[in-house]
């Protein structure tokens, strides 16, 4: 149990929704990876089984959150492009 949990070292400029959403994705990936190292190796018994079941449920929910954030990021990118388009039209106008 001495291996180190992964830590996100990238810092993001959160001045745009795109970057903030990417940072959210990065953080949730970090959470998923850490949870991947939280499975018991030595512990045996009904308590360990119950823990593993609960951890599995939470890990699945974290993975689902990651998927949702990725989908949201796609929407963010699209919205940003639309914003640029509108801004360009506004400037042109």
């Amino acid at each position, binding site marked *: *149990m001495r291996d180190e949990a992964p830590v996100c070292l990238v810092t993001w400029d959160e001045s745009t929704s795109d970057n903030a*959403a990417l*940072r959210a994705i990065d953080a949730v990936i970090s959470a998923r990876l850490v949870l991947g190292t939280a499975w018991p190796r030595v512990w*045996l018994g009904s308590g360990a089984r119950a*823990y593993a079941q609960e951890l599995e449920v939470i890990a699945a929910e974290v993975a689902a*959150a990651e998927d949702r954030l990725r989908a949201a990021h796609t929407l963010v990118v699209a*919205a940003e492009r639309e914003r640029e388009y509108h801004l360009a039209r506004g400037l042109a106008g």
Partner: protein
Amino acid sequence: MSTAPDGTAQAVPSTRIMVTGGPGPLVVDTVELEALAQRLEVAADHLVDTAAAAGGAAAAFWLFGYLYAPSAAPAREALSAEQTGLPHMADRLRALAGDLRLQALWYEEADRRVGTAFSPGVWDYGRHFAGLLPAKVEIAVRLTDLAMVGGYVGAGLDAVHRGDVPASIAAQRHTAALADYLQYSGGEAIYGSAIVDGEVIDITESTPAERTALGLTSPTDWLGVIQRRGTEYPGLAVEQALPAAPWGVAVSGPWGPGGAPRDLSGALGPLGLPGALGPLAPVELAPVILAPTALAPALRGIMPPAMPAPGRRVQDPPTGPGPALRRIEALESRVRTTGVGVVEILRTTDGDGARHWTVVVPGTQDSGFGGPNPMDNETNLRALGGAVSDMERGVTSAMEQAGIGPHEPVAMVGHSQGGIIAARLVEDPVFMARYDVEAVLTAGAPIGPVEVPGGLPVLSLEDVEDHTVGFDGQPNTATHDHVTVAVSAPGAHPPHHWLTYAGHADLLDGLDDPGVRAWLSANERAMGTTSPGARTESLVFDIGRTR
């Protein structure tokens, strides 16, 4: 998890169940549990960061004028949802980390081994011979003892109330410390014996908590006599409550209102033999103390009645440990009316005519010592110390009067003191030679020192916040047949209440543990209430001390 009115998941302290004992493998490295807990907390921190970043992304839409972009609204809603939901998931991870730490603590306590080595120290000899020393020295010794005991008790109470560790663990640690100090304080303890009502009990193989409990019986007996202004209750009577009478109305025993004993001289049969007037006659037991393995004379003197004892039909018989514990509600109600102890014996006759028995023993009902109600602290100290108590004798007599046959399966259910009584009875080889006890449930009972016989399925329920289960100063020994199920259920009823334990018992069916499954099967077979065509009757017995 629960659901809030707005439909979002709420993190609440979860019910955690820890099982020790049974045939399944159990390997625990508490260092690993701590490492896992730390990782869960790191993951929780990441989720909080995720939520913050998602919130930042959603806010940026407002700040930088995305409002006119058609894709902005769904993106903002999705990010806002994550900003709200992820902190709850982080809370669940932190709760799970807390559970892991609790389990690490519990498993460490379960590993505690209590020695039985008999080795009084210098101070113990000094305390014993203080009476031979000058008065000032003796007074100094006694005051030192009092101060030490006060310190132990005060520190224990403080630890229980502070809540740094679960109350049961705090009580167990402090009881162990107090017992280490007090174990040789009884009159003859440094010689390896305790004298209880004139009977000499060998304590060289006892645990410190057992020695301490036995050492306290004498002073507390005196305390009880002083409280009752000299009235003593050396006798014991056991009488079946008339089934025709509604509970709580008819008091037909040798006790008047409030437990005041009546004259029993006309109620006993010739030669004073119990049962001589039939199954409804009160049984007066001689005021003798029996050695732990000497219940035989009492049993030989009581023949099973020729006619089955009348019972009261139970319309909704208990089919498992939870409903069996809920029988205690009516029994406690009866105690409040009669002022004496009570035990219920359920007789179940299955479709083939075979009989099964369930013996339900409630917990402490009287905070005094040695009064009319034997469900008191005198019984607690004796049962904890391993001396035969009035409730053991009373329950045994009730089982005889009920007519339990030697080969008929018996399930025993005891809450608190009742659990100690049940465990002490099955520890007695004479009792086990007479009765076919096939399953025992103890709920909230400190039975760590009890040596449960191998091959008998015993399940002990312990709420981790119930300080009572720590009064034995040691954990239950985890064996193949003795399973201890510890439950952490924040926000439940008062931890020691039988209703709380009934709720815990209801959880057993959902446990995937081989020890628990084996016990449930054995208990179901012994109770017999789920057998096709089963019919269950209730036999209630009053147990009271008499003058």
